[in-house]
């Protein structure tokens, strides 16, 4: 009873802290500035570029912000927070994501199920993660765009034990809600060099996802599921990021660096490892309504700190490790994905812009602290409405 109270209070405290920090970010954004943050600080640069524009008979535009009316005005659908919005503009989005993992890997080498079962009683054989993500963006002013994402996550994992018995566990529910502010840093455009835009992200992930999912396993009914099956981190996490996007004629490109940094430890006593994400993409507009993209996505994530004291990790008198997914030091890894995408812009209807975007890809490099399931493919489809 006491432990429950403490957990409940910790959870509430985490959420309050997250809301408070976000509130401060948003409040500052709403009150202090109107325009890109670096506007007026780069006079020398602007002067040089302005002279170049004049010499070429062109115009230099500073702060030419978001324009929705290109199919590639948004990055590939798997990239979040890739663009900002103009003041008063709303965007609502729905994304569906499916990620499939199969076969185990240790480092960069594949490991067979039998090899895993030499050290563990159970091995995961494949995992499917699906996510329905509802998002909203709003241009609060000429500096700040607010962003919120509400995910619904469904996970299922197939296992095999030493006796050859296969079983499956499932977990589903609301994931971690993410709130962020995107801050316009600077933007400029000149016909001969294209448009270049920079923005910063400050954000928070709130611990709304279940970190105590349970399902029936051969170990017992209603067993606590291991780390990869959890729907959230259980902590308030910082979500910093920096994005650069560019456009010239029918070509557009972007680069984004983002992180997920947990603050403190969750109710179960552990902390998810930090995650870093680098995206680099290029897109070509084939017509006013369609563009295709290619994206490299580098991810690095670290092992869990401390551990969930309620999660059994060994079994029997010999303390045989149960399953790799319950080991905190077998969670880290790095991966490079290559993804291809299509963005379609529909004709506007009553002033609404509709984007339908699809993206799919697979890893071309994976180095895992294994044995750990390796990713096989990921697929995204999303609908975005701007009004």
């Amino acid at each position, binding site marked *: 009873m006491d432990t429950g109270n403490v957990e409940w209070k910790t959870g509430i405290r985490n959420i309050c802290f997250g809301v408070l920090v976000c509130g401060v970010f948003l409040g500052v954004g709403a009150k202090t500035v109107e325009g890109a943050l670096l506007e007026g600080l780069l006079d020398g640069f602007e002067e040089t570029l302005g002279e170049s524009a004049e010499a070429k008979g062109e*115009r230099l535009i500073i702060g030419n912000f978001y324009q929705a009316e290109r199919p590639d005005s948004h990055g590939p659908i798997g990239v979040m927070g890739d663009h900002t919005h103009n003041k008063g503009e709303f965007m609502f989005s729905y994304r569906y994501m499916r990620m499939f993992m199969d076969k185990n890997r240790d480092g960069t080498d594949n490991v067979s199920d039998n090899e895993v079962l030499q050290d563990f009683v159970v091995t995961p054989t494949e995992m499917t993660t699906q996510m329905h993500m509802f998002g909203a963006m709003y241009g609060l002013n000429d500096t700040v765009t607010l962003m919120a994402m509400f995910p619904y996550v469904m996970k299922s994992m197939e296992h095999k034990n030493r006796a050859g018995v296969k079983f499956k566990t499932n977990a589903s529910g609301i994931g971690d809600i993410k709130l962020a502010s995107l801050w316009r840093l600077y933007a400029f455009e000149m016909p001969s060099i294209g448009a270049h835009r920079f923005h910063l992200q400050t954000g928070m992930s709130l611990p709304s996802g279940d970190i105590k999912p349970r399902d029936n396993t051969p170990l017992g009914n209603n067993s606590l599921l291991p780390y990869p099956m959890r729907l959230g981190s259980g902590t308030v996490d910082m979500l910093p990021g920096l994005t650069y996007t560019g456009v010239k004629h029918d070509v557009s490109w972007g680069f984004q660096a983002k992180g997920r940094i947990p603050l403190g430890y969750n109710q179960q006593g552990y902390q998810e490892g930090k995650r870093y994400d680098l995206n680099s993409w290029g897109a070509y507009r084939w017509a006013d309504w369609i563009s295709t993209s290619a994206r490299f996505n580098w991810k690095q994530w670290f092992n869990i700190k401390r551990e969930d004291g309620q999660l059994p990790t060994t079994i029997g008198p010999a303390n045989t490790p149960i399953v790799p997914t319950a080991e905190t030091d077998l969670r880290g890894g790095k991966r490079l994905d290559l993804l291809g995408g299509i963005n379609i812009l529909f004709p506007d209807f009553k002033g609404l812009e509709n984007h339908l975007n699809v993206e799919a890809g697979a890893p071309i490099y994976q180095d895992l602290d294994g044995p750990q399931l390796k990713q096989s493919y990921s697929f995204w489809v999303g609908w975005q409405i701007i009004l």
Partner: protein
Amino acid sequence: MENKFRWLSGIVVLTIITGTSMTHAYEVGEVRDGGTISGQVTFLGSPPEAVHFNVDKNPEICGQERSLMKVDVRNGFLTGAVVVLEGVEKGKPFLPQAWTGTAPGEGDFQHRGGNSLGLRVNTKGCNFGPFTGVVAADQPIQFGNQDSIKHILHTFVAKGRRGSVLRTIHNRDIHPDHEMHLTVSSGKLQDSRMVRLACNRHDFMENWLYVVKHPYFAITDEEGQFVIDNIPQGHYTLRAWHPLLGLQEQEVQVAPGMAMGKNFGFSE
């Protein structure tokens, strides 16, 4: 002692702020025996040809083809040049006036008049209004969209002799039959006096506004003529501006009741 210092600092700052704003504010008052300046603005050479656009987006509203006459010269006279008498701090009230854009499209710039310029931009037929106009800093501009399609209003402060450096002021959607109030703040303008209007959706929608502080301005008609009347006596700078041709200045001394002729000549 410390409190006294704070009070003193506060008063000094307040005085500076008040003083600064008073220095820049135009005051409407009686003008006795005011002077008049009239003249013509000419253009020598071949003006640039109108820019033609094939309309891809919303041709049912905007027309299949559009052209934009950026330098409008008729028989050697420049239409749409903004002539402003700089340096007047007190004088006549703003006049109610309206200027309509060239067809197709019936957008217009309307000035309510009185103690302020009171600009209203009526967007109609994918046309904000005439290619050139005037605007006042820190005063709300009422933008209306009478079209059944959305326009994305993009305003810029322009720098450089011919506005070759543009800095975004606003970038806003104006939905069908909607209105919005926007202000060109003096903070954004800094020392520039040129504002560009554009629509992100329709690249033939382009207009230029010169920032005025008082009603002593005129826009040249089809014969390049302008008249500025009821001018208080004093020494001023008379400016003629066109967004593509630049700025010309002349010093003028206005005496009570005096009628003065002043011409400007732009060239290629």
